[in-house]
């Protein structure tokens, strides 16, 4: 694949692995989510450049809106967790533990 594809492909993969393996703080997971979103944004932006059509130009903006909502929701969870448990450690989220 071309160098461009490789770049956002690997960014996405590394971010998702980072999401999976950052086990201590919730904020590192959220940061990885943001970088996943970034790589998706760049990938979506490359689409009209590669196919030379103008219709898909709207898609990155839509995705950005949704990711902003999602980041807001994640930060709200972070704040709520900090307010109740005093820190943002991931092992605080254990209400479903058997």
């Amino acid at each position: 694949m071309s160098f461009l594809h490789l770049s956002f492909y690997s960014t996405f993969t590394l971010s998702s692995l980072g999401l999976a393996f950052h086990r201590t703080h919730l904020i590192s997971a959220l940061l990885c989510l943001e970088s996943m979103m970034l790589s998706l944004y760049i990938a979506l932006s490359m689409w009209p450049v590669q196919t030379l059509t103008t219709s898909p130009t709207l898609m990155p903006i839509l995705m950005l809106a949704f990711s902003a909502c999602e980041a807001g929701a994640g930060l709200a969870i972070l704040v709520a967790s900090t307010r109740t448990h005093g820190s943002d450690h991931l092992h605080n989220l254990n209400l479903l533990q058997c």
Partner: protein
Amino acid sequence: MDLSLILTMSMLLTMATLTTPLLLPLLTKHYQNSPHTITKTVKTSFMISLIPMTIFIYLGLENITICWKWKFITNFKIPLSLKMDQYSLMFFPIALFVTWSILQFATWYMASEPQITKFFSYLLTFLIAMLILTIANNMFLLFIGWEGVGIMSFLLIGWWHGRAEANTSALQAVLYNRIGDIGLILCLAWLASTMNSWEMQQTPSTNHIPLLPLLGLILAATGKSAQFGLHPWLPAAMEGPTPVSALLHSSTMVVAGIFLLIRSHPMLQNNPTALTLCLCLGALSTLFAATCALTQNDIKKIIAFSTSSQLGLMMVTIGLNLPQLAFLHISTHAFFKAMLFLCSGSIIHNLNGEQDIRKMGGLQKILPTTTSCLTIGNLALMGTPFLAGFYSKDLIIESMSTSYLNTWALLLTLLATSFTATYSLRMSLLVQTGHTRMPSIMPINENNPTLTTPITRLALGSITAGLLITSYILPAKTPPMTMPILTKTTAIIISIAGIILALELSKMTQLLTKPKQNPLLNFSMTLGYFNHLTHRSNSTKLLNTGQKIASHLIDLCWYKKMGPEGLATLQLEATKTSSTLHTGLIKTYLGSFALSIIILLITSSH
């Protein structure tokens, strides 16, 4: 005068006379049996059966009668056909004569028995079954007689069923006979599937019969006639009353196996493997039984082992392809063996139940008739010239010595013949001669005519039967006429050697101290360790295998490990493993997320 009709009718009348005491009490209330009436019935049957025998001797007339056809399935009809040939026509009078004498003796022997009539009816039923076996022309009728004698043997051996040893002996007899019956059923099945008939005439004698049905027949004879391998039941059967031993286990039932081989001789004669098997099996049986008889101390067991030894000799004769000679030996053997048993019964009763020959002695002056007949019987058994046993036994030994056969079998038989002389003489010496070793005051009395008449009658038979039968019946195969003197006198010489040995040994017992145990003595006393080795191991092996298959394989393995419960256990394992993942912590879910990513990487990297 239609003699064929007279032949058939007199034979059927004999059988009908015998069944009368069994059927009449069921039909009318007035007629009740008693031992006296049953004895008279058998005597009448004997007289009637002399008619067909005389016709046969005079004319050589044989007959086959078909009474009824049982249409079993299509294309396979089982006729009720009776064959009156040399064997059955000669066997009927002999068996009836011996049975008459035994029944007369039993009126004295079992006089204190409360159920004596039932005993006599059992003996009569046995006799009828044996005669059915003899007169049968097809294997089905023979099988009916075969099973009949087996069942009656069981009932009669366990007559005193309060005694534990009698029960085990009866059970042993039935089990060993059953193993032989498997062979007979095998032969029946082969005949039904190949020849489509169970008639004796339709079995081919010219082309070769495969070995399997013949092996079945030999197995049946081994079981019924107590050849080596299925022999322990015969000495154990001495638990029954002496009339039972005299009738069943000396003259009639145990020769049923040999009789089967005589009847199916056309099948056997062309198969050298089967004949050699008979020869070697018979030789082994005769020597084994004679060896075991050397160290027995129970008078009935000595006679039982001598029966077993003579049966082995009959098997050897079958192996020599001489069925008529085997039948001659059956006929002469019946007389002196029954007489030996009756004499032993008289001695046992007179000594108030003492059966150990070490506790008898000097009876010659006290029981003259009985001991004289015992001596006659022993001499006939040894093959003393011109008594009954000589005509058959000497002829067998001569034929063996002049045939082209296995030397090992010949040597074993000769050794067994000399052992026969040895143990017979030992028994006679210990019972009749010397000082008395029994308790002082014994009510010994043999003046009862119901005791002495049958014994003397059988003694007359033992002396003259051989001469009479061989004078009137022509041999089917040419007997050997010329042979070297040493071969001709082989039987006599080795019997005399056995007698000298017995005399020397009997002197030793009074002059020297009792010898210590040695392996040969132990081998002979424990009957070759056969009972100890096989009775426990075979049954535990069978039962273990049965338990493995029925319980372990099916219940434990199929149900618990592989079937329903096994599936449940497997699921449980999988559930336990996967429930460690369902902890409710985010780490686990993130981990599964990573796993999905890796799978995505791998599968899309092309």
